[in-house]
């Protein structure tokens, strides 16, 4: 397997421009002769589908929800970064690039990150033009807020519903193209496999979730924008349907999977309340602009928060990181919360929580302003916990939120399978070992609106794909394999439900491969996951048939894939004998408990190749070079 990053030469500021000039173009009249499949209608997939259709390609777009507008991107709350420097506070493309590389703990590819920072500026313009109602100042100019890991204010937002508004902009552009005939939309249709012919991605096999019909869709190129795999942990902030099936099947057909162990644990989520818990709810990081994080100074202090005097509170982020304070990056904030809870100073049921307190902010700016900034988040909190955060501090705890890992892609966002492009959270690209807040929306839209529409032309113009017939033996073979797998899931008729397996996998992953990892725990997980997988295929109970809307069957297919991916995540975590970003190995920490990287041994992207044996994937390495941002121990002190 070759890992050629295809990063263009020249100075970093010029690479994308140079590349755009050098890439081949498809002549406008020929574009309509090409069909491109886009799986996913989130920010990445939706933007790509709409933009490629605008260029003239025939696009087929798939999503598993009943409407493309419901993709998980809709749930993003806090905002989207862009290096506009509208605040005149010293921001620049270079600074956004620098913050992202540093925030990612020096595990991302510089050239990609620089391009992302460059494009960030155009994204805001594009969204405004579509009618996205970003927050504005009284003078009518766009407003900004601050987010973790940055000392400038560069985050654009639409109340606490930024993802919703960006996605609706994108969805409306998509529907406009549907009406024009450029995009054919396939909602409630799940990709279950990838068709690779003569080494190139040529289509997908998908199941109509309403009728159960399995069919083949062919194209000249395939783009996956299928989101992240955080639900491998069962409990996460992701939507219930978010899954890894598309990228995992593509992996098994030859696409390398990069840095699977880089998962982001978000510091501000509502703590688990009971065993029946089905998902975790994020409280946007933007709350850390005004909320102060604390726990009682003394372990086992069970007094209600209002009765703990100032002098007996430990504002541990402000204490440990005086220059960034409550706005340290997510990985740092999450680990700090874990360590105070491990010391027995956690609050709430089970001691698994810390306070996020708005009392000072309310005194300073008034409850009205706080309501204006975060009203919907406060309401959401109260609805779930039955506590009023205007009066008592919120209780928060870290939860799985985002996956930096994903399918390996080159500078053109193409995977190791020619013709298969991967965009948005599904690829591994720009965030290294830790993503900064408000950067996923930026990346999804950069990939979808601006990058993949250009690079796909280069691919199509160079590869000259010839037509494939649906009766091609490879299509038949993959379709038969999909049908067989479904049949097997239904035929087990065992005793345990899909959810019970998913929960068990999630608890192994969280305990052994969550916020802190060590070799003994990972080895144990690597023993237990295959056992669980074996039981799954022997003792699963999926009622119903494959010829109907069968939600248990859908879940079963996704959990079967998580049971394989989970193993790869642990293997990757075990092999990476260093701590970096969201990957914290207890054996590798500095004296004051910060992550200790090992650039000499691990300054690379780990790209795993499927060999047919889940226990023995092959490791490929893409070395990372830092020409611009100098490798340094991150410090937010």
């Amino acid at each position, binding site marked *: 397997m070759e890992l050629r990053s295809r990063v263009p030469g020249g100075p970093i500021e010029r690479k994308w421009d140079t590349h755009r000039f050098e890439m081949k173009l498809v002549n406008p009249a020929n574009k309509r002769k090409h069909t491109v499949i886009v799986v996913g209608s989130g920010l990445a997939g939706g*933007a790509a589908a709409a*933009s490629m259709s605008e260029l003239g390609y025939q696009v087929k777009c798939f999503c598993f*929800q*009943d*409407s*493309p*507008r*419901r993709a*998980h991107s*809709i*749930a993003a709350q806090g905002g989207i970064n862009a290096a506009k420097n*509208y605040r005149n506070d010293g921001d620049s493309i270079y600074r956004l690039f620098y913050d992202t590389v540093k925030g990612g703990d020096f595990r991302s590819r510089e050239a990609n990150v620089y391009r992302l920072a460059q494009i960030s500026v*155009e994204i805001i*313009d*594009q969204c*405004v*033009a*579509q*009618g996205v*109602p970003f927050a*504005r*100042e*009284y*003078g*009518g100019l766009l407003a900004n807020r601050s987010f973790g890991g940055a000392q400038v204010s560069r985050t654009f937002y*639409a109340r606490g*519903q930024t993802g*919703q*508004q960006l996605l609706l902009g994108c*969805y*409306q*552009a998509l*529907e*406009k193209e*549907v*009406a024009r005939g450029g995009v054919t*939309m396939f*909602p409630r249709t799940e990709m279950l496999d990838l068709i690779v012919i003569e080494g190139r991605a040529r289509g997908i096999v998908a199941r109509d979730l*309403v009728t159960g019909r399995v069919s083949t869709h062919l194209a000249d190129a395939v783009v996956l924008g299928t989101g992240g795999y955080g639900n491998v942990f069962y409990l996460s902030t992701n*939507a*219930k349907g978010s899954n890894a099936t598309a990228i995992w099947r593509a992996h098994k057909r030859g696409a390398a999977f990069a840095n699977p162990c880089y998962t982001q644990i978000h510091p501000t989520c509502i703590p688990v*309340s*009971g065993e*029946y*818990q*089905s998902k975790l709810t994020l409280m946007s990081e933007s709350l850390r602009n005004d909320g102060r994080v604390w726990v009682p100074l003394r372990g086992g202090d069970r007094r209600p928060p209002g009765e703990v005097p100032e002098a007996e509170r430990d504002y541990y982020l402000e204490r440990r990181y005086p220059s960034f304070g409550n706005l340290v990056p997510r990985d740092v904030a999450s680990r700090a919360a874990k360590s105070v809870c491990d010391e027995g100073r956690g609050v709430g049921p089970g001691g698994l929580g810390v306070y996020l307190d708005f009392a000072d902010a309310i005194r300073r700016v008034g409850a009205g302003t706080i309501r204006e900034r975060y009203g919907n988040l406060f309401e*959401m909190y109260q*609805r*779930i916990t*039955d506590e009023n955060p205007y009066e008592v501090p919120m209780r928060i705890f870290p939860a799985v939120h985002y996956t930096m890992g994903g399918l390996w892609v080159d500078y053109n966002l193409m995977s190791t399978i020619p013709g298969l492009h991967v965009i948005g959270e599904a690829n591994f690209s720009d965030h290294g070992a830790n993503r900064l807040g408000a950067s996923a929306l930026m990346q999804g839209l950069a990939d979808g*609106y*601006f990058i993949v529409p250009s690079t796909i032309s280069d691919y199509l113009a160079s590869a000259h794909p010839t037509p494939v017939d649906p009766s091609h033996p490879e299509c038949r073979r993959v379709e038969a394999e999909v049908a067989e797998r479904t049949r097997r899931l239904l035929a087990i008729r065992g005793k345990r*439900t899909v*959810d*019970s397996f998913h929960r068990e996998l999630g608890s192994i992953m969280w305990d052994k491969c969550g916020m802190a990892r060590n070799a003994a725990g990972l080895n144990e997980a690597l023993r237990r996951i295959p056992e669980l997988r074996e039981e799954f295929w022997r003792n699963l*109970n999926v*009622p*119903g048939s494959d010829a*109907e*809307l069968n939600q248990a069957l859908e879940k079963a297919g996704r959990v079967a894939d998580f049971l394989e991916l989970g193993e790869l995540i642990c293997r990757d975590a075990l092999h990476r004998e260093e701590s970096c970003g969201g990957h914290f190995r207890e054996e590798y920490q500095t004296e004051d408990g910060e992550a200790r990287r090992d650039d000499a041994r691990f300054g690379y992207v780990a790209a795993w190749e499927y060999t047919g044996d889940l226990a023995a994937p092959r490791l490929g390495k893409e070395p990372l070079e830092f020409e611009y941002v100098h490798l340094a121990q991150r410090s937010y002190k």
Partner: protein
Amino acid sequence: MNLTLHVWRQAGPDAPGRMVRYEAADISPDMSFLEMLDVVNERLMQTGDSPIAFDHDCREGICGSCSLMINGVAHGPNPGTATCQLHMRSFADGDEIHIEPWRARAFPVVRDLVVDRAALDRIIAAGGFVSAATGSAPDGNATLIPKDTVDTAMDAAQCIGCGACVAACPNGSASLFTAAKITHLGLLPQGQPERLQRARRMVERMDIEGFGGCTLYGECQEACPKMISIDTITRMNRDFLRASMTPVRAAVAESD
């Protein structure tokens, strides 16, 4: 707490449906409504029954997937709350709860509590957008927009497209849904060039899809999980009326 559920079960679009009674024992008041259904489903599967199908995804009140009629009220008893954000503490021990799908001519039942809402997508496709092809945008600050304008646009733009307004409306009208989009885009400078054409096309599409007309019952705004106001409908009617009186330019007709 212990509850008795009466749930609409229907095997497929053409199959007959009926209400089926289930006992939901040992439910925690801290569960969300959908977590309660998860528990019921786990138990059904354990006894070899088929689980109750219902749409859901984000479980945070933003994706618009969840769509249950609870005791005859779209999204249940709490105002401004989607089904997935409703918690069992809003019910009392021993309650009987009737759970049905959205009922409307334009929303055929797919299975159990799942309906087909694709008609809403087609209303958006008819004109609920600004034609701004990727790459063609001016600087985001090139046009100033007063804060009040953007805030009012945002109030309407919050629509999650769940269809509760349709389900709640005695006429099965999608007016609140359509008006929310017309208001959002019609208030912003970016939405002006296509404003009248948008109103005309979207309203016409709504009729074609089989949604009823609006007679201002106002049930929709009560059911809306984002509390979108029926003032938006007044705005839609005004734009539609103006559009009907404005001759359609040849250029527009061509692009049809």
